[in-house]
């Protein structure tokens, strides 16, 4: 299945991309998507347990993905 990855701030700069599509097995979890991202240039240093959102909501790394999901990698936030 195909999912979309969104990258922000420092992650976006490291990957030199703000979004990309990923082809994953049908039963993949968020953690498997993140592990795949580590093989991309610049993202080898992703933390072991990065904060993620799925479809604009914070989500667990164990969450099962569906085709079309939008997975965002959320670096340490610094609003306010």
């Amino acid at each position: 299945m195909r999912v979309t990855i969104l990258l922000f701030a420092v992650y976006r700069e490291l990957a030199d991309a703000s979004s990309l599509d990923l082809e994953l097995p049908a039963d993949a979890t968020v953690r498997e998507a993140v592990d795949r991202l580590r093989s991309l240039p610049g993202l080898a240093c992703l933390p072991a347990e990065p904060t993620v959102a799925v479809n604009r909501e914070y989500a667990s790394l164990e969450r099962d993905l569906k085709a079309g999901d939008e997975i965002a990698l959320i670096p340490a936030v610094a609003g306010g």
Partner: protein
Amino acid sequence: MRAVEASGARVIGHVSDDPIRVEELLRAGSSADGAVTVFVGRVRDHSHGRRVIRLHYEAYGEMAERELAAILDETASRWTFSHLEAVHRTGTLELGELSVAIVVAAPHRSTAYEASRHVIEEIKRRLPIWKREEYADGEVEWAGSAPSEA
């Protein structure tokens, strides 16, 4: 922009590039509200000992508005007030410009203080917004993204 009517409270949240106009926010509420608090965050000229000359805020826009609305709704379910408005700027901000503003109009002052404080703490904890600091020495760095924190 978003306005819900949870327990009669008017609740509005924004994440946008538009400058924040506190004068307008201050007219919030009705004559039933004896207390109004305004919190504003302003661009500071220093950060961890370095001189800052400018900030750039980047947001995961759709999620940030959704998360801000969730924060405001949770706040409305915990405290009783008539008006709660929170605005977060994105884009480039010069020194002294407002990055965030929170207004609470309530019948009682304890609510006005506590609800306001709760909103800013939650914004800082969970709003997907990032700050790139531009320093006087020409360097630029994402706040909170030093290698050890990445």
